[in-house]
């Protein structure tokens, strides 16, 4: 068992990395306004803030991916300029970015050694046997179980995270920066990650840890820097480091809590699913979705929920099973067919599956729902004025932080991008809306708004299916929760049974039977 780093009374003299008064603007947007950050050797340092607060930008600057406009960065007291990712690793830093970076067609071992100096034979060829011997202890320590010659693309997200960590360890980095590492990890994978982080810290490696999950932050970090609107507004440690303190620093005021309105009456069945299967990830799924209800789909990452959503949505074809929508047969062959039948989807990977990053907010909001934009009912032309007006309304309704309706959506922060994807379905009002991890990577303020929005949609008679890997999220939000494990729906929870612990218990039900500890 690794010890939790003790809360140090007086920090040692020289921080490993210290950034001071860093500013950075992208075109018109001011991402950082004189932010500061210092990470001590061997500490686990948290970095938190609302969406768009500038966390990723600060990290990208440390990584040499972008250059700040002004500011100073020092490593062990010596000022440095970090011109490239190469320079950053030369300074003893290793990064695990928000968007996972690995080469899908290369093997696990090749990905671990990516960009690192490699042992060669006398002929100048890479000596993979020697390298494998060298990294074996690290692989053991990190807990990679996949064969080293498997292609990285055949691995799960969690295993690819482990690859990144292994790379950092091989490089003997003094600081490992992790940008929202747990966003796509299961609870057990999270626990494993935490113990690795503690081990690193104990062996003198500093970790800079970015997350929206405050429980993790409180659990792991000795000190926490809070960013708000590009400024570092607080550094909390010791007794000052509390959930309440963090929330106040992040939001800059008090947060109201969502109280669930239980008055929505559940209507007739809209979508009915029977025996849906697509091996290997979905074994059997049967359920009914009612008008006006928010149905949660809980479980561990990899339980097959996203796959199930894709089946409902016609993005994949099932092996067996049947569906009806509003009593009529429903067998979508494409997402277009599903949309016509009255479905909508907010996909899990918003940047790659949800958005056209180069196009404007208005364009993205109107995508897939162009009928309201038609200038006249007879001609096929659309009205750009209508598009802008509708976009403006949606931006207002969802309080999306965008400079204008014409701003490219790729320049919004993660949370605001997510709101744009949801906003798309706000106008077309599908019968059934599926949201896959709608609040992943979304700050607590925005998360509250998104929850309120979901309830509101249900209140207007929409049937909503919410997939979430955070057990906390579903009990507050949903009328009823189905728990999936290993491709099956294993439990239905509603009413007073619907609690966080019941979801967790059901999620592990199958796993624990099969994998003896």
């Amino acid at each position, binding site marked *: 068992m690794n010890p939790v780093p003790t809360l140090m009374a007086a920090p040692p003299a020289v921080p490993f990395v210290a950034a001071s008064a860093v500013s950075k603007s992208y075109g018109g947007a001011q991402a950082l306004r004189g932010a500061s950050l210092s990470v001590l050797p061997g500490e686990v340092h948290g970095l938190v803030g609302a969406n768009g607060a500038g966390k990723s930008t600060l990290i990208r600057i440390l990584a040499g991916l972008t*250059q700040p*406009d002004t500011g100073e960065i020092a490593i062990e007291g010596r000022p440095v300029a970090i011109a490239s990712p190469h320079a950053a690793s030369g300074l003893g830093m290793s990064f695990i970015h928000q968007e996972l970076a690995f080469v899908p067609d290369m093997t696990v071992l090749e990905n671990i050694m990516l960009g690192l100096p490699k042992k060669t034979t006398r002929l100048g060829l890479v000596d993979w046997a020697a390298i494998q011997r060298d990294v074996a202890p690290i692989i053991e320590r990190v807990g990679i179980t996949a064969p080293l010659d498997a292609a990285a693309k055949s691995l799960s997200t969690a295993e690819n995270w482990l690859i990144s960590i292994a790379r950092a360890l091989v490089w003997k980095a003094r600081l490992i920066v992790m940008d929202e590492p747990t966003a796509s990890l299961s609870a057990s994978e999270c626990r494993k990650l935490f113990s690795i982080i503690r081990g690193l810290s104990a062996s003198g490696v500093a970790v800079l840890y970015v997350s929206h999950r405050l429980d993790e932050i409180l659990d792991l970090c000795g000190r926490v820097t809070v960013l708000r609107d590009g400024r570092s507004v607080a550094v909390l440690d010791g007794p000052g480091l509390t959930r309440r303190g963090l929330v106040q620093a992040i939001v800059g005021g008090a947060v109201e809590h969502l109280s669930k309105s239980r008055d929505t009456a559940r209507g007739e069945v809209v979508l009915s699913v029977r025996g849906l299967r697509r091996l290997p990830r979905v074994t059997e799924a049967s359920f009914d979705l009612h008008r006006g209800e928010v149905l949660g789909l809980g479980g561990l990452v990899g339980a097959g929920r996203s796959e199930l959503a894709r089946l409902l949505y016609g993005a994949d074809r099932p092996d067996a099973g049947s569906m009806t929508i509003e009593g009529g047969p429903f067998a979508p062959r*494409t997402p*277009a067919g599903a949309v016509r039948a009255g479905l909508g989807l907010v996909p899990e990977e918003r940047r790659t*599956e949800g*958005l056209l990053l180069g196009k404007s907010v208005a364009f993205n909001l109107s*995508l897939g729902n162009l009928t309201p934009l038609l200038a006249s009912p007879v001609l096929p032309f659309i009205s750009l004025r209508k598009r802008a007006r509708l976009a403006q309304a949606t931006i207002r309704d969802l309080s999306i932080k965008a400079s204008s309706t014409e701003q490219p959506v790729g320049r919004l922060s993660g949370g605001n991008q997510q709101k744009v994807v949801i906003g798309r379905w706000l106008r077309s009002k599908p019968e059934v809306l599926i949201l896959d991890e709608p609040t992943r990577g979304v700050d607590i303020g925005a998360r509250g708004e998104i929850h309120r929005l979901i309830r509101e949609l249900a209140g207007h008679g929409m049937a909503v299916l919410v997939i979430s890997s955070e057990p906390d999220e579903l009990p507050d939000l949903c009328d009823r929760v189905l728990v999936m494990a290993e491709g099956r729906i294993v439990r239905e929870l509603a009413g007073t049974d619907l609690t966080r612990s019941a979801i967790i218990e059901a999620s592990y039900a199958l796993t624990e039977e099969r994998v003896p500890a």
Partner: protein
Amino acid sequence: MSDVSYTRRLSPSTRAALGVFARYGTIIGLLAMILVFSFLSPHAFPTFSNFINVLNQASLAMIIAGGLTMAVIVGELDLSVGYAASLHGVLVTGLIVANHLPIPVAVLIELALGALIGVVNGVIVTKLKVNSVIATLGVGTVLVGLSFAYSAGVPIVSGVPESFLQLALGRWLFGIPNPIIFMALVFGGLWLLVERTAIGQEIQAVGGNPAAARLAGINVDRIKILGFVLSGMCAALTGTLLAARLGSGTTNAADSYLLTAFAAVFLGSATLRDGEFHILGTLIGTLIIVLGFNGLNIFGAPTFSQFVFQGAILIVAVGLASLGRSLAES
């Protein structure tokens, strides 16, 4: 030790200027080129008749480039357009001369055939999932073979009626040469389609991010096929007009349009928008290429300089635009 603190490298006004340059650079370049050539050849270059002549000459390449733009907007390349246009030229004269079909019927058959070739390209790319470079190269090569099979490579010449030639040589509207009219109609139509219709929004979405477009409920395959169909139809129109202009259908008459069209489309992507392909850009791109060729010729520049000019203008225009853009954003 040297000073390593960061200072802002570019002032906001410099950045803004660079941004303007990135967007309007090619247009500025076009205007500068026109000025220089007007200065060098004041009597021959900047005349209305020369402009009409150049535009008339360029119209065919422009039509094919307009079609190609549709293929690249949906994210695919269409290397078959040159070969296809050559084949259409052979077939349309064959239909008129050998099969005695009325001209409008022959032209309509070509347009339908162009659409069909587009469908074939599109289906191979979307359903067989063949990379579009290889698919359209393959289809183009097959088309050359078909052209040989039809004509044994011998141009179809005799008996081409004058009324067919008038398609390209006539001036049916206000004394403007017909090819210019056709070109204007094609560009106007495509511009409206892409920028102002619902289908156009879907076309742009498919080009921007096919995965997201698909999940937003757009039938991506159908839109991609549509891009190829428009490209194929434009190739058919170009091939037909070229046959009318030359008075014959020749197996490789239009092959060389491929490179011109490509260059125009990519030059266009450096114009006005940030590296996106669009119809207006293609228009400006073709103008740069043909006016440059014309101006250099009138000035009497040697052959080699024309190649150098054509190659260099591409790199310089696109390079400066993207450099300006990335500096402005940095």
